[in-house]
């Protein structure tokens, strides 16, 4: 299919004149070794160069990573607590954990994002609500982190539960039989074994958080996808803008998957294989 489109990577590499008084740019980016040279630093080349687009991308990537990592901390801690709760003997604890999982799993992330951002501050006690709305710096970022973390905790909880349930009952019995308490059995036997088993599904959960952090753009978080759309709208160089974002997402995915493979191999229990990733 023939298409009418003028590729122009230099748009992404331009600098504001104030930022780059020497008039040269040393930047090479993503394999396209383009010197931004004469193409870019002056306003008279048009709107193309009006903004530091490369900085936008870098900042967007930064926020994506920060939001995803902070949310992951919530996800892994809360998800572990809830996953463990679903395997204990007390029916009440199990019921609460199950309710959490069902609610957070069955409402779309975007709806949850809106509820956290627009509805929850209204429902808080007056003082807390005012603080969240008026004084909390960067409220959309905090909201996104909490929302993403709690949403994905429901999924991680299911992985943790599946990991624990995949361990034969005899292991629990063996632990209890030597006098360990239930808590100690979880601490020293069930959790160490199940975390190792569920590394692949936990990795894809993390990738899920990382990709879903893009949903935060709906409440104003300027992460990678938001920045690339903004560049697309400013410059009409949509292919360049979205290609950069896509390549960055793929690179981060590749890095995370590689790192997790190494981790998995390092902690693998001799003579066992891990549960398949989902």
């Amino acid at each position, binding site marked *: *299919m023939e*298409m009418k489109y003028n590729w122009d990577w230099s748009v992404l590499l331009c600098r504001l004149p104030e930022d780059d008084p020497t008039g040269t740019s040393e930047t090479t980016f993503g394999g396209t070794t383009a010197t931004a040279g004469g193409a870019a630093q002056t306003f008279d080349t048009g709107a193309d160069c009006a903004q530091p687009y490369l900085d936008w991308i870098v900042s967007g990537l930064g926020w994506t990573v920060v939001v995803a990592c902070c949310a992951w901390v919530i996800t892994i801690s809360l998800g572990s607590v809830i996953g463990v709760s679903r395997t204990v003997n007390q029916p009440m604890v199990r019921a609460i954990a199950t309710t959490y999982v069902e609610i957070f799993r069955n409402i779309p992330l975007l*709806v949850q994002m809106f*509820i956290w951002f*627009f509805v929850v501050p*209204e429902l808080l006690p007056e003082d807390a609500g005012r603080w969240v709305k008026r004084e909390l710096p960067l409220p959309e970022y905090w909201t996104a982190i909490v929302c993403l973390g709690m949403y994905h905790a429901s999924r991680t909880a299911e992985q943790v539960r599946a990991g624990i349930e995949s361990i034969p009952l005899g292991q629990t019995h063996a632990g209890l039989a030597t006098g360990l308490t239930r808590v100690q059995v979880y601490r020293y036997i069930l959790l160490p074994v199940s975390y190792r088993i569920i590394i692949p599904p936990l990795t894809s959960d993390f990738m899920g958080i990382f990709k879903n952090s*893009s949903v935060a753009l709906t409440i104003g978080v300027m992460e990678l996808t938001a920045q690339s759309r903004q560049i697309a709208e400013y410059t009409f160089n949509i292919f360049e803008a979205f290609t950069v974002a896509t390549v960055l997402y*793929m690179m981060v995915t590749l890095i995370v998957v590689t790192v997790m493979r190494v981790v998995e191999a390092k902690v693998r229990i001799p003579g066992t294989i891990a549960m398949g990733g989902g």
Partner: protein
Amino acid sequence: MFADFDFQVIVEAAPILWRGMLITLLLTAVAIVGGILFGTVLALMRLSRFMVLSVFSGRYVDAFRSTPLILVIFWFYFAVPYVVGRPIGDLYSVLIAFTLFEAAYYCEIIRAGIQSIRQPQVHAGLALGLSQWQTTRSIVLPQAFRNMVPVILTQAIVLFQDTSLVYVVGLKDFLTAADLVATRDNRVLELYLTAAVVYFVLCFISSMWVKRLRRQYAL
């Protein structure tokens, strides 16, 4: 805040929400059918002996699975008109985006389903004198299908939730409709909570049904 919860707002918004729900359901249905069809093709390519097909399918799946759905939606919303040479409207661009995106996920499900059938089962079929194709048709595929169905349905529920992301290009699905009314009438609480409840009820019931199915057809 709950004291002035206004049910009347929801009743009045019902027709708009219903039209939104129809879009959501249309999107879900098309993406499921298109995703499974194209996903099957991709899975067969992936398992084929021809390197080119296998590698292409692998790259395709990796690319879509490592990209956020919102970015994919943007890609097709902004870029397809350039490729086609004319505007195609937000509905079509989103339908294409969802179908191609979901195909990557369905490909993996179908491939895993086929590969879950152990080699001795194939050997047993061949040993009984069945041909390769007969073995595939009467031994591998029926078992693979049973393994796949619950996962395919679970993915469909995820997909149903994901359709809400078309909000980012302003297509009037269920959530976007709720959002429009919410902003228009300044009734954020009522509309967002209604949307949450509706999604929850539909997804919860479906997932219960899938769970029952899984038990019924457990091998």
